[in-house]
C-alpha cells in the first residue's frame, strides 16, 4: 500500500540517490547525468525492498510515532542498500572495463580470467551451505518478525512491526543528553585545534568515547522498561567478559611465556577450560557458588569471619558470577592466542628499547602491547560474539536469568520469548535486534580498532 506520507520520503531517497550517483559515476569516469538517473532510480526503487514486504503498514493512518519512526528507518535502509549497490556497480563496471585503474583496486579485488562459470562451480558447495543454513534462515527470521507466530496455530497473521514496537517506549534520557552535549563540545574542540598536536589527540579520543556512550545511552532510552533491562544486562555482561577476559588472558599469557620448567604442561592445563561447553561451565559455577552447599561459601566461612552472600538474591553478584564463569571459560582461548602473539614480538625491538633505557613496564606498554594489537583485535571480535551468543548457556544453568532478570541477556530473553512463552514472532524480532547489535559492534570494531591496529609495516 502506498500512503501519502511516503511520497516525501521517496523524494528524499531519490534526491540522495541522485547525489550519490553523480559522485560515483563521475569518479568512475562516466557522465554524471547517467549517474543522477541511475542513482535516483535506485533511490526510488530501493525502499520497496523493505516497504513491499511490510506493505507500507507503518505509515497506515492511526499508527503511533514509534511505528512511523521505525518505518522511516526501514525505508531509509532499503534506499541506502539500493543506492550503495548502484554506486558499487558503477565502480565495478569502471574497473572491469579498465576505465579506472588504481593500485589499491588491483590489490584488493581480482578479476576472473576465464569467465565466472568455473569459479562459481567451485564455490557452489559453500554457497549452497550458506544459503541453506544462513541466508534462508535469515530471511525466515525477517518474515517471522513481522508476524504473530505460535507453533501449532492455524495461521500466522501479519502484524506489521508490532513485535518490535512492543519492545520500545522511547523516553528522554538526561544522561544521553549530557553525553551528547559533551560529544558536541569535544567535537568543537577538535575542530578548533585541528588534528595535529598532542591536545587534540586527547580531544579526539574523548570525542570518540563520549560519542559511543551517547549512542549507547540513546539506544537504551529507546527501549521500553522490560527490554531496557535486557539491553543493559547484555552490555554489562559483554563488557565484563571482554575486558576482564582479555586482561586476565594477557596477564597469564605473559606469565606462562616466562622460561619456567614444565611450561608445556602449564599451558595445556590453562587451555583446558576452553574445551568445556558453556552450560557445563554454568553447572560448575552453580555448584561452586551454591548458596546452600557451595564450596566457595564454605571456604569463605572457614577462613574469614564473613559469610558469602547468595549470588541468587543479588543482581550485581549474579552478574559478577556470570562474568567470572564466562571469563574462565574463554580464558584458555585468549591465553592461547596471546602466547602465540608474544612469541612473535620482535626481540630486536625489545632489545633496542632496553638499550634506550625503557623499563619493563614501558617496554610492555609501548612495544609489546602495540605489536599484539592484531591479536587483541581478533580476540575482541571473538569474545564479543561469545558474550552475545554463547554465554546464555552458562546463564541458563547458573542463574536462569535471575535474580529478577538481572542476568537475562539478549539471547536468554529471545529464547524465553520464543520457547517459554511460545511466541516465535517476538523471538524473531528480538533476534534481529541482537543482529543489529552485532552489526553495530562489528562496524565499530573494524573502524576504530582497525585504525589503531598495527600490523608491522
Amino acid at each position, binding site marked *: 500500500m502506498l500512503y501519502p506520507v511516503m511520497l516525501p520520503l521517496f523524494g528524499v531517497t531519490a534526491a540522495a540517490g541522485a547525489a550519490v550517483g553523480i559522485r560515483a559515476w563521475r569518479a568512475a569516469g562516466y557522465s554524471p547525468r547517467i549517474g543522477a538517473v541511475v542513482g535516483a532510480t535506485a533511490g526510488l526503487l530501493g525502499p520497496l525492498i523493505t516497504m513491499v514486504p511490510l506493505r507500507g503498514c507503518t505509515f497506515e493512518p492511526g499508527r503511533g510515532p514509534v511505528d512511523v519512526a521505525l518505518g522511516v528507518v526501514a525505508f531509509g535502509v532499503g534506499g541506502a542498500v539500493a543506492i550503495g549497490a548502484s554506486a558499487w556497480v558503477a565502480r565495478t563496471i569502471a574497473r572491469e572495463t579498465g576505465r579506472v585503474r588504481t593500485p589499491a583496486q588491483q*590489490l584488493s579485488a581480482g578479476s576472473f580470467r576465464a569467465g565466472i562459470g568455473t569459479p562459481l562451480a567451485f564455490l557452489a558447495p559453500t554457497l549452497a551451505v550458506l544459503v541453506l*543454513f*544462513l541466508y534462508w*534462515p535469515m530471511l525466515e527470521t525477517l518474515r517471522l518478525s513481522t508476524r*504473530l507466530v*505460535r*507453533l*501449532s*496455530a*492455524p*495461521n500466522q*497473521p501479519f502484524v506489521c512491526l508490532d513485535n518490535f514496537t*512492543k519492545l520500545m517506549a522511547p523516553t528522554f534520557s538526561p544522561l544521553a543528553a549530557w553525553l551528547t552535549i559533551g560529544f558536541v563540545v569535544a567535537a568543537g574542540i577538535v575542530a578548533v585545534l585541528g588534528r595535529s598536536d598532542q591536545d587534540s589527540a586527547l580531544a579526539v579520543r574523548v570525542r570518540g568515547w563520549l560519542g559511543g556512550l551517547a549512542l549507547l545511552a540513546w539506544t537504551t532510552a529507546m527501549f521500553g522498561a522490560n527490554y531496557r533491562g535486557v539491553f543493559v544486562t547484555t552490555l554489562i555482561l559483554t563488557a565484563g567478559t571482554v575486558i576482564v577476559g582479555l586482561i586476565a588472558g594477557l596477564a597469564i599469557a605473559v606469565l606462562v611465556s616466562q622460561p619456567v620448567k614444565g611450561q608445556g604442561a602449564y599451558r595445556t592445563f590453562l587451555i583446558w577450560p576452553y574445551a568445556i561447553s558453556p552450560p557445563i561451565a554454568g553447572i560448575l559455577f552453580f555448584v561452586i557458588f551454591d*548458596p*546452600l*552447599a557451595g564450596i566457595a561459601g564454605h571456604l569463605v566461612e572457614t577462613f574469614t569471619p564473613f559469610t558469602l552472600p*547468595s*549470588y*541468587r*538474591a543479588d*543482581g550485581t553478584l549474579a552478574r559478577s558470577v556470570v562474568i567470572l564463569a564466562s571469563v574462565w571459560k574463554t580464558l584458555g582461548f585468549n591465553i592461547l592466542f596471546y602466547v602465540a602473539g608474544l612469541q612473535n614480538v620482535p626481540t630486536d625491538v625489545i632489545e633496542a628499547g632496553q638499550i634506550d633505557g625503557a623499563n619493563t613496564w614501558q617496554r610492555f606498554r609501548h612495544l609489546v602491547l602495540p605489536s599484539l594489537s*592484531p591479536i587483541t*583485535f*581478533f580476540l575482541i*571480535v*571473538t569474545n564479543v*560474539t*561469545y558474550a*552475545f*551468543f*554463547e554465554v*546464555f*548457556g552458562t546463564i541458563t544453568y547458573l*542463574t*536462569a536469568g*535471575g*535474580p*529478577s*532478570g538481572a542476568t537475562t541477556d539478549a*539471547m536468554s530473553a529471545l*529464547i*524465553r520469548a520464543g*520457547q*517459554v*512463552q*511460545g*511466541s516465535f514472532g517476538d523471538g524473531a524480532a528480538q533476534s534481529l535486534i541482537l543482529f543489529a547489535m*552485532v552489526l553495530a559492534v*562489528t562496524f565499530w*570494531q*573494524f573502524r576504530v580498532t582497525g585504525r589503531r*591496529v598495527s*600490523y*608491522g*609495516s
Partner: protein
Amino acid sequence: MRSLRALTVLMAVLALLLAACGSDSAEPEPGPGAATDGDDTAAGEGGELSVWIGFTDYRLDWMNERASEFEEAHPEYTVAVQGYDSYEALFQATQLAAEQGDPPAIVQYFEVATQEARDAVKPDGTPLFASVEAEVDGRDEILGEPVVLEDVVEAARNYYTIDGEFTSMPWNTSSTLLYANADLMEAGGVTEAPTTWEELEAACEQIRASDEAPENCITWPNHGWFFEQSVGQQGGLLANNDNGRDGRATEVTLDDPAMLEFAGWWAEQAEAGNYVYTGTQRDWEGTQNAFVAQQVPFILTSSGDATAVVEAGTEAGFGVEVARMPYNGEVTYDGNLIGGATLWLVNGLDEPVSEGALAFMQFVNNPENAADWHKTTGYIPITNASVDLLEEEGWFEENPYHRVATEQLDAASGSPASTGALLGAFVGVRDVMTQAMEDVLVSGADPQERFEQANEEAQAMLDEYNSLYVTE
C-alpha cells in the same frame, strides 16, 4: 603484512559466522524419538508406538517397564518411550515435531497445556490431537486391554473433561502437599502439622526460636502451579467465563484479590525470614534439597514426589510428616486443584497405530499399573478400581500419608475456582506470574503493582493467542 590483516579479518568473520550458526543449535532438537513415528505398519496389524513423556528419572524407567510388558502382551507392537527434561521442554519439542510433520503417537502434556492441546493444529490444518473418548467410542476393551477411562476419579475428571468429554487420557495426577520435618517440629514443640497460614506462621515462630533451629522455615518452588493452588483454595478465579470452563477465557485476572492475598502473604513470609527463595524459578530440585538438608522444616511440593521425599528424609535421618497444603484461614476454603499431566493421542495415525496407542494408554492405567504407579511416585491412584485394590492390600493403613493427596482433592467443592483455569497461552502466563513473583521476592517490588503489570502482560498474550484461534 597485508595478508596477515586479511587473515585476521577473515578469522573474525569466520568466528561471527560460526557463532551465528552455533546459536541455531540452541533450539530444541526433536530428539531421537522423532525418527520413530508410527508409519511403518507393513508387518501385520501392529506398528511402532512412540511415546514422549516429560520425565528422565525413575518415572521414565517405570514407563519403559510398562512398555516392555505391553510389547510382550502384544508382540505385533513395539513401544519406544522417549523422556524429556521437563513438561515445558516436551511441550516445545512436540510442537516443533508437529510443525515438521513428525509427531509421536502419544504425548504427555501437562495440565496447563490442555487448552493449547485442544486448539493445536498440524500444518495441514487438521487437529493435532484426537479426542481419546471419541476414539474409544464406548468400547469396553481395545486389543484386549480393558478400557478404564470411565473409572477415572472425580478430581481428574472435573479438570480434564470439557463438555463432559475426556479429550486426553489422565495418567499422573497430583496435588500440592505440605511435607514437614517431624524431628524439627518436635524440637520446636510443634505437635501437629499446620493447616492454615496462621498456624504455619505460629509453627515457624516456635521452631525458629528453638535451639539448633534452622535459619528459615519453609520453601516451595516459584512455580505457577502454587499460585493456581492458592487462588483455588481461596475461591478466586484466574480467568473470566468461570475460569474458562463456561466458554473460552478471554480475560485473565492475575490481579484477582485471592492472587494478591497470596502474593502478599508470600512476600511477608519471605520478609520475615520464614520463606526462603532458592533464587531460581521452577526450582523443584533446589527446594527439595533444602528440605532434605534440614535447612527448612517445611516444604510445599507435589504429592507426585511423596515417595521420593519421604524416602530421602528417612535416609537423611529424620521423620517426614505429610499434610494438606496450608490455606488462608480468613476466607472459606474452596478447594485444591490437581496438577500433573495427561496422555494425548496424536490425530491422523494409521488405524493399527492409533488402536495400539489407545490400548497402551488403557494398559498403563489399568488397576494394577495405576496402583503400582501410585506406590512408586505418590501420584494419586487415578481410577476407583486402583483405589479399591490399594485398600484391599492395606496400603493406606501402612502408609497413611499416601491418603492425604486424594483426601485433599476430594475436599474440593467442585466450583470453577477449585477446578482450575482453562486458558490459552497458559504456559506463557505462568512464566509471567513467576517472573512477577521473583521481582517481588528479590527486588522488593510491590505485589499489587507488579501483579497488575503482570496481568497486562498476560492479557496481551492471551489476546494474541485468542486472535489466532478464534475466527469469526
